[in-house]
């Protein structure tokens, strides 16, 4: 174990801003990519669902 206390862990031997600046930005960017992709997938699935519903309704109307 390297760290005696939480303060020592956060301080990173005086290099805290550099070490945590790296790790926090990396984690935020990866999380943002995952969330952004989830949104992209939802958008296209929803849009395709709408398109399918519209084309079905049209087919229905022309039948009737």
């Amino acid at each position, binding site marked *: 174990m*390297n760290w005696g206390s939480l303060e020592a862990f956060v301080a990173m031997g005086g290099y805290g801003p550099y*070490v945590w600046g790296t*790790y926090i930005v990396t984690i935020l960017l*990866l999380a943002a990519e995952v969330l952004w*992709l989830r949104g992209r997938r939802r958008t296209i699935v929803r849009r*395709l669902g709408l398109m399918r519903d519209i084309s079905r309704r049209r087919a229905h109307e022309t039948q009737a």
Partner: protein
Amino acid sequence: MSQRLVNWFKYSSPATFYGLAGKLVPWFAASSVVLFAIGLYIGFFMAPTDFQQGEAYRIIFIHVPAAWMSMFLYLLMAGYAALGLIFNTRLSGMMAQAIAPTGALFTFIALWSGALWGRPTWGTYWVWDARLTSELILLFLYVGFIALQASIEDPRRADKAGAVLAIVGAINVPIIYFSVQWWNTLHQGASVSLTRAPSMASVMLAGMLIMVFACWFYSIAVVLVRVRAIMLERERSSAWVAEQLADAHA
């Protein structure tokens, strides 16, 4: 021989690949989370303090994997782009397009972590040395590829134009890799090489390699999710997409 050819082309068809990719994503995502947890634990709690750099060296567990991924992903993207130009397969262009944003992300992380590591060890966030400059050019190549594809309406033409850019830009990857040997750079030489023993403690090396695998699995999962979205966007009027959606809503 013909059997193998048939199988190859079966999986290069978007309809088949879409389902296969969907099954693989959860496995790669879960492996990535587990490996990140192990890698970070080793990096912060098992790897000892560096006798020269103190705790600042712990940036290595992000910096080196991100820098490697930025180069691996570029070569993979250029490889798919070349396949698309040669065989004119639809999937290749979609894969190249799906890899680019993740490659750009890792390139940015490599530059960002490098700047934050450079400040305490070199006394500066940035210098125009060969390694840093060529890595910055890599970021511009990714951004250029994405912007070029986004500016062309027809996806097949966008794939072709992007492919040429990606293939020509691939020359930059060996330049990044060998820059520390070819020029007198402030950036240090390779820490890990196939020809000699690594110049770091084995615990540090283990943590770093686990982080590399975590980044690989993360990239594979994210690229597969993105390529599935691209497939739906591009092939929305085809029969297989309608079938996929019918299954999903059933």
